[in-house]
């Protein structure tokens, strides 16, 4: 099996940047919407993961 580590690391770095962009997007959403609005969406995720 051939593994190109450099390529994998570049992918990881791109993924991280993309995730950070989403963190920014979501944090701004939370900041500009009513608590009830963002928390209802977040609750779907939390309740489905833990309960």
């Amino acid at each position, binding site marked *: 099996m051939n593994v190109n580590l450099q390529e994998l690391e570049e992918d990881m770095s791109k993924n991280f940047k993309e995730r*950070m962009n989403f963190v920014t997007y979501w944090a701004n959403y939370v900041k500009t919407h009513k*608590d009830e609005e963002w*928390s209802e969406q977040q609750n779907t995720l939390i309740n489905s993961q833990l309960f």
Partner: protein
Amino acid sequence: MFKMEYNTKKKEIKLNREFNQLDKFVLDFCSLIKEYVIVSGYVSILFGRSRATEDVDMLVPKMSKEEFKEIWDKTMKNGFECLNTSKIDEAYKSMNDHAIRFARKNRPLPNMEFKLIKNDLDKYSFENKLLVRLKHGELFISPIEMQIAYKLFLAKGGNEKDVEDAKHIYILFNEKINKEELARLVKLLKVEKQLEMIQ
């Protein structure tokens, strides 16, 4: 536009979020403890991070065995159990060495990591804690500036989740953060480069 009400002078935040089961677990447990501060991941989640967590970190001051017994009895009566041991003496001894975990009986997830305040950072979080008023209760959390700086410190270990938590809180509270205090804590923890990543 900032929807949450954060009164920096009173050290209070009012949050009208809808409740999830994790919030209920945390509030139920916190209502049994007089002196504590919630730190780390759950604080980011409380303020909307798009993730869950299996454990919540609670710091408590050192206490006598009698004081611990009072907490132990209350938690047992209210449907919690200690995951490390069912013996109070063992639990009390263990606390000096590591966190002990409490969960609802027969439901190990989520759980509360119950830790003694051990160093100056812990002490800072406890002494400067913020009160968060929610629709169905209240809880104490670590100050926002420490929350960011400490998450950046944890991120040095390579966990992306910690950088993301720090960034979320930083964006959310950007206008309300005490920038001088944040800079002081960032310098103390030597995470200047990590701070640049989230700015």
